[in-house]
């Protein structure tokens, strides 16, 4: 349900950078989204099409690069990637874990026509 404010944030950032670059229009946004951020691509795309309509970003493609969640065990140093839910270390069953990737949630770049 919170994809609308998130889509608005993305639009705000993209427009700021597009204006700085004196772009005529934005053609693509490259987003980096970690597996652990609870975001649904299709829902953002749905809101995006509506809110970007009369802006420099109208028609721009949202490209989502998904980063898998990676954890490191603080006891045995084993690193592993999550397939589904959070699990204990598959090697030593420790629950002292550190998330090393998968929390990303940023706009990496935009592609513009000037």
């Amino acid at each position, binding site marked *: *349900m*919170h994809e609308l*404010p*998130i889509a608005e*944030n*993305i639009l*705000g*950032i*993209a427009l700021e*950078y*597009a204006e*700085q*670059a004196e*772009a005529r229009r934005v*053609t693509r946004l490259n*987003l980096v989204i970690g597996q*652990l*951020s*609870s975001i649904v691509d299709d829902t953002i795309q749905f809101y995006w099409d509506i809110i970007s309509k009369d802006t420099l970003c109208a028609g721009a493609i949202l490209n989502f690069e998904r980063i898998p969640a990676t954890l490191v065990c603080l006891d045995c140093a084993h690193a592993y990637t999550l397939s589904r*839910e*959070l*699990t*204990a270390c598959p090697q030593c069953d420790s*629950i*002292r*874990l550190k998330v090393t990737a998968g929390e990303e*949630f*940023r*706009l*990496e*770049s*935009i*592609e*513009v*026509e*000037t």
Partner: protein
Amino acid sequence: MSKIVPVVQEIMSANDSLAAQNRAKLDAAQVVGMNIMASPGAGKTSTILRTIEALTADYKLGVVEGDTANVTIDADKVIAAGMPAVQINTGGNCHLDAVMLSGALAQMPLAEIELLIVENVGNLICPASFALGTHFNVVIASVPEGDDKPYKYPNIYRGIDALILNKMDLLPYIDFDMAYFRRGIEILNPEVAFFPISCKTGEGVAEWVAWLKERAAVYRQ
């Protein structure tokens, strides 16, 4: 001509920077802020009322109530308990964000309070994504919700300081595997303080309030 413009900006940066301003405002007024999150019906308001009852002799309290609908039921209960309360009607929105809290802080008599309790909208997903600027975050779970919630809603349990498990009086009547629940929490957040309580019987409330006083004292120094 087409070109790539590097951005590299966190999507939540606008909210995060406003959350930092909220924190600065609370710090300047020497008010400790606590964000309470839970699913609908877990007992947020009951826990807040129990907490107010136990703390009222030692702390001057204020409450911000987040609600999706334009009703003042929860705020009325708090006002009846003698506290300043500000209601945020999110207009159907599923969470509080830093902008909404900023608006509520402007209405709250901060000079008259020491501990601000922020009751987030009942939801286990969206509030986790929006920092408010409070000093600590608490989730209230409850026995009837089931022992699998940490596995289904992992994000809300990460980054919280305390977890309350309410409605412990219902434990004999419900299939709730405490070890399974706690293991799910520990994987997500091994440092979290855990308080099994019952707002109905008062069980465990003293331990929770003792922890809260200790944490509030640390931030007020």
